[in-house]
Structure formats: C-alpha cells, structure tokens
C-alpha cells in the first residue's frame, strides 16, 4: 500500500515527522512500520512536548531507589521494604466510554506496579467532571465511579482515597487519573531492561483483540464533534484476568527466571518490546503468527497496535521457560514464546517466516522527536477582592451554601462503591487528609494522598504548581507521616498552543521549586496533553500523588475530634486572601484574581513543627486548612466524629468572612487537650510559628459565636445530601 498524505495524517503524524521517519529508515516505511512509528512517537508515549521541561524536576533524595523512566517510581522505607507507586491518566477513553475507560485506567496502573515485582496494596483516584448541570455529567460520574470500583474491587485491592471535583472546564473533557501503590522487598524489584542475546521473549496474559488500536494516538489529539466515533479505540477491561495475571507474575517473580518484564500498556506489543530492547541496547525479533489472538485474521498491524488489556511481555533466562509456563498454566493464562532478543539493534517483525517490518530501535525511542515548543508567560492578576466590595450575605448562609455544594459535600456516595478494607491493612480510609495503609505484618505504615487545584493553577500556574506540592506535603503531615516523594499526572490542554505550553512550563517551574525546597522529589508520572475539545482547553490540572512513611502505625493521626473540652487551635497565619476561594466561587461566582501565595519557608516550618507535636503526642487530631477555609476544616473535623464545637470570632481586625473563608496556605487546625495547650504553645512559639486558639470542642452543636448554631446532625445532613439528591 502506498503511504499517502491522508494515511500519514490519520496516524497523527506531521509532515516533518514523516520526513524524519524516511530519513531514519533510509526508505519509505510500509503501513505496519508507519503505525509503529505513530504509536511510539505520539505525545502519550514519547513525551515529545514535555521532556524538555520535565527534566528540570528533582527526582532524587536519599529514599529514592528508582526515579522516572521505569514502569513506576520506587522508594526505600527501611528494613528491606520498598514502596512502588505511580499515577496515570485515562481521560480520553473515560469521556468516550466512562465505565470501561475508568476501569482500564485502574487496570493499567495496577500492571505498572506489579510489573516491578510489587504486590499492589492501595488504589487512589482523582476524577474531575464538568458542571453538574451539564447534561452529560451525571452519566459520566456514574460510569466512572462504577468503573473504578468494578475493577479494583474485583482484583481485590482497596481503593482508599482520592478526590472528586466538578468544574465547567471539564464539560467536554473529563479527567480520570488513577494511582496505584505497591509493596516489594528491596532486592526483589524487577525492571524493563533487557539483557543477553537469544533470550526468549514471552507473551503472557489475555489474548490480543482489535480493541484499543491507536488508543495512545487518540489520547494525543483533541476531541471534536466526531469523538463518539472513537469508541472502538477504547479498551475493554477484564479485572478477573488481571487478578490471575498479577498472581501468576508475582509467583514467577519468586523464582530467578525473569530478566526483564514490561506490561503491554499504551501502544501494546509495540511499546513493550521497544522499551525493553531500547533500555538493554539490543534488538528484538518477533514471530507475529504466534501472538495469541482473540479474533480471526488479525493482521500484524493490528497485533502490534492493539491495546487489549491484561497482557505482559517477559524476557526469560534461558532454560526457565518450562518452569514459567507451568505457573501460567496453573492460572489458566496464555504463555507463548513469540520471539527472542537479538544483537542487531532492530525491531524485526516476521509473519509466517516473512519479514514484514524492520525498524532500528533507536529510531523509535532515542530518535523520537523532542519539541521545545513556544510558550508564553502567564500574567498574574493583581486584582484583590475586598469583602466590602461584595453584596452582603449572612455568614451562616454562606457557610451552609459551601458545605452543601457539590465540591464540598461528603463523598460517601462515591467511596462506598469502593472496597476500602480488603487486604486488611487499611488504617485510614477516604475522607481524611491521607489514606493510611499498614505494611502487612509490620509496624510500619504509609500515608498516601492525591491532590489538585485547577483553579489556583489557572489563575497562576507557577503558584498553583507550588501550592499543589505543598498541599500534598501538608496532607501527609496531617496524619503524622514523614513525606518522602511524589508521582505526578499533568493534565493540560493542547501543547501546540503557546499559552497552554506556558501553563505547562510554569507549573513545572513552581513544582520544581516546592519539590526542591521540601526535599520531596518526583519519582514517576505521566503527562496528558490535548485535554480539550474544539480548541477549548481545560484548566491546567496537575495532580500530585504523595507518599509518606510512619514508623509505628500506632502513631497515626486523623482529623476526628476526640473529646469535648479540647481546644481548637489554628496554626499558621491567616491573612484573609479571598481570591480564588470556594467562598467567592460558590457564593459570588467570581473566578478571577490571584491564588493565595505560597511561602515555602513557612510551609516547611509549620509542617515540621506539627510533626514534632505529633511525635510528642501533644495533639488529639489534625486537619489541614484547604478549600473552604478554617470554618470548613473545623466543620469536617466535627462531622467525622459528630462532636460539636464552639468557635469564637477572631479578636483582630480581619473581617469575619476573610478570617473564616480565606484560603491562605500552610495552615493546620489542631485539637489539643487543655492540659497540653501550654506545651504546644511553647513549642510553636519557640519555632516562631503563628497560632491562635479559635474554639473548644463541645457536645452536639456546631457554633460560631452569634452567627451559627447548628446541631451536628443538621450539619451532617447539609453536608451529606448533595450526591444523594443529584
């Protein structure tokens, strides 16, 4: 078949990219080869627009065993234990087919974790939908939530945390980001670097079908009105097979027979074989007629580009084939030797002994295009809203409107669809600052949180990038854990637009600064560009997954108020910043203005002081102050244990609204026993940290002096009705 202009553009390749392919091959590619180039060179697989910026992020501290570049990042948590984690997007498929899109997003990220030898121990997610009033939103919410649950529940990994948000920016392009965390022994981690010649390349798992062909290319283009037609490019998940594949792989990993292993994720057989060969500096030859197929008459093109789920490619030590095969047969999974490693650094594809494609490995990986795209600096809006400029509203009415809004309501409706307890080590479920999972049969635990704030990032990407790293750090501190490292999922619009590229570049600058200051490096991640429809781009939405360590799981903190009479303390200074807050958005529908500023030095001091107080057991409960301000944080603490609280008005010049609804950063709410308050204040004063007592825990009523008096049951009902009425 002659490669025409139309075929090239259908493969998402630009003319200059096609010319580069011709130069690298020193001839015209055939259709199969063109398909392979398009799969490897698309944005999703090649990071061609992001690489230039991503390299600036810090990726090391003394805990990091493996940074970006592998299936997932690995950190050392002591005693030979390692934690392996990553977050990834599945936005486009989930918009087209919400249940399967979300389900296979979970499946894909789980494989990234167990490919490296870890047993997955936790799943989290960050899901973003359009305006609830938008026609499609309800259907997408239902589909995505049940898809995430449907997959994770069946594989038997607890889904322990995440965030569900609504914003009209996602009306035509929702976000579904899934994070998985696994545990492995430090000396039993598996990588994707091939070694040795003539080694068997083995295909295991599900059979290959025609689903998901060019899925990664779809994820690398904007949507338009014909997107519905892309349904066939969405993969179909089978969590049952995933469970079998996971058990079989983990069983094989106990033996010494695997040289390299890679899951067939985006761009399936193509990317898995190319990545292993590229890292190993060798070539791979595949006999495609041996690939187990689900459908008849599949062509080499379809086999190489299918994104059928639940498949792995393994390079085995010579002589270990039989032992390995027995394990996969036990689990009723396909096990077929489909090729071998070779010296010449080519990907050689044969079908019934005829060579049907031959591409230098380097051409697909190292020689893939990298773009230093134009980017424009974002202007920060200087406008600051003063409360006196706004129409009057009763304090109580504003508070009720916020805590019963879609974004601030209790999310039980979502999290009750996820099995949070399977595996028996969930110390803290969704709803707190971080999920906490005990390391099986150990004293140690890890804390995990997923965070984003698209509104702040849109208002000023550098500040937003910093803020989101700090928020993640703060959430880990709030359960008494030591923050170690992060994974990031960078959801942005079209990188060919210099404004969008500017958002990306500046977000990275902000993240870099915060990660460096907090010694909180990035160990894995994923970039998702082209989130938008018909040139309407989404708000920049970096999502951060953070992991922290707790040495003794008996020292975990939560945000549940413990006892009447305890003192409620605000730590960190309140300046009254109202722009970009939930207050202005929910009450006045105002979305302009700068985000709250980040002071990294205060952030760090405040956090470390909290850890010190936690270590000395001077605190009963902790909660960070986030969207919705002080009052929302205290309300959440009250609701999580149904203990009331009496809050006093601030004895300073700040307006009531500014004090309680502002979203100044680096703040925490602490619950302290009256006996300990002296010691706590002393420690905070020694560290020069601003703090003030705002109230006292009490029976039954949530009260703000002369403004609000609600029974905790009333508060609970206000906070719990949104999802059930939607």
């Amino acid at each position: 078949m002659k490669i025409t202009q139309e075929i090239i553009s259908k493969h998402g390749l630009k003319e200059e990219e096609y010319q580069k392919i011709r130069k690298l091959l020193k001839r015209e590619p055939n259709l199969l080869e063109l398909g392979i180039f398009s799969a490897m060179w698309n944005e999703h697989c090649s990071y061609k627009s992001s690489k230039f910026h991503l390299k600036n992020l810090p990726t090391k501290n003394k805990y990091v065993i493996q940074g970006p570049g592998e299936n997932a990042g690995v950190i050392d948590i002591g005693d030979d234990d390692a934690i392996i984690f990553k977050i990834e997007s599945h936005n486009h498929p989930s918009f087209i087919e919400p249940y399967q899109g979300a389900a296979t997003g979970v499946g894909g990220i789980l494989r990234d974790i167990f490919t490296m030898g870890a047993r997955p121990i936790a799943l989290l997610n960050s899901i973003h939908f359009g305006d609830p009033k938008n026609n499609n939103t309800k259907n997408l919410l239902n589909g995505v939530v049940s898809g995430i649950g449907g997959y994770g529940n069946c594989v038997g990994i607890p889904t322990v945390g995440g965030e569900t948000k609504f914003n009209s920016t996602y009306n035509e392009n929702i976000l579904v980001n899934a994070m998985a965390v696994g545990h492995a022994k430090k000396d039993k981690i598996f990588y994707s670097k091939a070694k040795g010649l003539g080694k068997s390349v083995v295909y295991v798992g599900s059979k290959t079908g025609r689903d998901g062909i060019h899925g990664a290319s779809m994820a690398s283009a904007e949507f338009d009105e014909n997107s519905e037609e892309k349904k066939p490019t969405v993969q179909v998940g089978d969590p049952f097979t995933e469970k079998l594949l996971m058990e079989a792989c983990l069983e094989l990993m106990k033996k010494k027979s695997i040289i390299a292993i890679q899951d067939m994720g985006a761009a399936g057989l193509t990317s898995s074989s190319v990545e292993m060969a590229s890292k190993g500096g060798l070539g791979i030859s595949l006999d495609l007629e041996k690939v187990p197929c689900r459908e008849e008459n599949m062509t080499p093109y379809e086999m190489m580009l299918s994104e059928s789920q639940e498949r792995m490619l393994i390079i085995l030590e010579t002589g270990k084939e039989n032992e390995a095969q027995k394990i996969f047969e036990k689990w009723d999974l396909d096990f077929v030797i489909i090729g071998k490693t070779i010296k010449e650094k080519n990907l050689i594809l044969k079908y019934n002994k005829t060579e049907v494609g031959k591409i230098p490995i380097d051409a697909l990986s190292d020689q893939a295009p990298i773009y230093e795209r134009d980017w424009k600096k974002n202007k920060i809006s200087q406008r600051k809203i003063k409360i006196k400029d706004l129409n009057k509203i009763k304090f109580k009415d504003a508070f009720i409107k916020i805590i019963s809004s879609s974004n601030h309501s209790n999310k039980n409706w979502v999290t009750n669809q996820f099995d949070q307890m399977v595996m028996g080590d969930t110390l803290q479920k969704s709803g707190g600052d971080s999920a906490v999972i005990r390391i099986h049969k150990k004293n140690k635990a890890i804390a995990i949180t997923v965070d984003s704030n698209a509104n702040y990032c849109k208002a000023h990407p550098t500040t937003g990038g910093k803020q989101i790293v700090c928020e993640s750090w703060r959430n880990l501190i709030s359960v008494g854990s030591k923050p170690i490292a992060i994974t990031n999922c960078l959801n942005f619009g079209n990188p060919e637009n210099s404004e969008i590229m500017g958002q990306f570049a500046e977000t990275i600058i902000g993240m870099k600064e915060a990660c460096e200051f907090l010694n909180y490096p990035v160990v894995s991640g994923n970039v998702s560009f082209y989130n938008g429809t018909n040139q309407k781009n989404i708000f920049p939405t970096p999502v951060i997954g953070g992991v922290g360590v707790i040495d003794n799981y008996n020292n975990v903190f939560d945000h549940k108020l413990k006892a009447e009479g305890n003192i409620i303390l605000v730590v960190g200074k309140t300046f009254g910043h109202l722009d970009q807050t939930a207050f202005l958005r929910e009450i006045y529908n105002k979305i302009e203005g700068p985000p709250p500023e980040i002071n990294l030095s205060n952030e760090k001091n405040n956090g470390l002081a909290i850890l010190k107080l936690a270590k000395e057991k001077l605190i009963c409960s902790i909660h960070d102050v986030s969207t919705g301000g002080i009052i929302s944080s205290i309300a959440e603490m009250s609701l999580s244990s149904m203990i009331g609280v009496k809050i006093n008005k601030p004895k300073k010049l700040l307006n009531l609204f500014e004090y309680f609804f502002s979203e100044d950063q680096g703040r925490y709410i602490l619950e302290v026993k009256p006996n300990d308050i002296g010691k706590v204040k002393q420690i905070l004063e020694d560290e020069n940290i601003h703090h003030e007592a705002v109230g006292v825990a009490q029976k039954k009523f949530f009260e703000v002096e002369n403004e609000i008096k609600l029974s905790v049951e009333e508060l609970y009902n206000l906070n719990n009705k949104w999802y059930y009425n939607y």
Partner: protein
Amino acid sequence: MNSTVIVFPGSNCDRDIAVALEKLNFKNKMVWHKDTTLPKSDLIVIPGGFSYGDYLRSGAMAAKSNILKEVVRFANNGCLILGVCNGFQILIEAGLLPGALLRNKELKFLSKNIFVKILDNKNKFCNKYKKNQVINLNIAHNEGNFFIDKENLKKLEDQNLIAFKYCDQAGKETENSNPNGSIKNIAGIFNEKKNILGMMPHPERMIDHSVSNEDGVGLFLSILS
C-alpha cells in the same frame, strides 16, 4: 483446630481470612480449586472475592468446581462450613443453603460498615455472642440482596436458621439499616443442621482494633469452643 480455606481463581479475601484464622490459632491450610482432596479439616472457609470473575452469575462456576464436590462431602459428614460474601453466594449456588442473592437494591456495589444482630446463639458459629447482640461488621458486595420464597422463609424462621439480620445501632431492623434490600433484613443463614453458615458481612475484617474493631472475633472463638 484445623481449618481449610478454599482458593478459587478470583478469590480475594482468602489472605484476609487466613490472617484471621491464624491470629486465633487455627491450624490453617489453603487449598487450590483444582485440587480434588481436602486435608483433615474441622472448618472449611469459602472466602469472599470474585471467583471465576463472577461471570455467568456470582458463585455459579465455583459451585461446579472439583473441590466443591469434596466440600459437599465434608459438609454431609458434619464438618463446619463458613461462606463469607462470595462464599455465601457459592454455598447457595451449590445448593448447600436455600434462597438466592440478587443485586443490591440500589444496583450498585456497596462497601461500608453496617450493624447486624445475632438472632441465634445456640450454634457452633455464634455461641460466644449474646442473643440479640448488635455487632458492627463490614460489607463489600454487588449481589447481597437475599431473597427466598415464603414457604422457605417460614422454615428459616420456624427452625431458627437465620443467623444475622441487618439493623441499626440500637438493634432495630429498619429499612434504612438494610443496605442491600435483603428480605426481612437477612444477612446470614444456616442450613438445617447448623453446620453451614453463609453470610454477606465480613467477620474477618473485624479482628483488629487498629484497622476497625474486634466484633468479628466472637465468630472465630465460637467455632474454637
């Protein structure tokens, strides 16, 4: 006491129940579904999960597996059999317990802590609990909506074969406290000889105070006594 946990492809609460059994000093063995014989067992547990992916119908394929024939034989000889969640579904599909487990009333997977009441404590599974004691357990299922025809329901009631009913914290069997729409709030039942118990809630998730509570411990201690 010797216990055996049956592992089907897709079982995922097998490790959790083994942890619970070992914590309470059972001598536990895991048996793979393709095996045809069972070790010496005083208790056989069919754990939760998605055996055979819940394809066809939850529990239907597992009920036809090799090892289930052996489980039936052991059951007929009086061995104690406990089926939790998917294990309950399997016991019903295998005909060892009556009724059916339909999709939850809201047609959604539901995982949360619930309260159940002990209806009968004169049996091998619940003798460490008080009659009408309310305990807090966790559920996680899509098909836990127990249904049975009138005649057999009467039999369950007349012969005290209802083990647990969903209720509120005070022990009232209300509609709100029934998470999945089960007939008469039924959460678990016995066979006539009361050597087989099937239940939707997970007792193995309530054996450790740092994770949840210890309300499930009584069930294992009852079996041991």
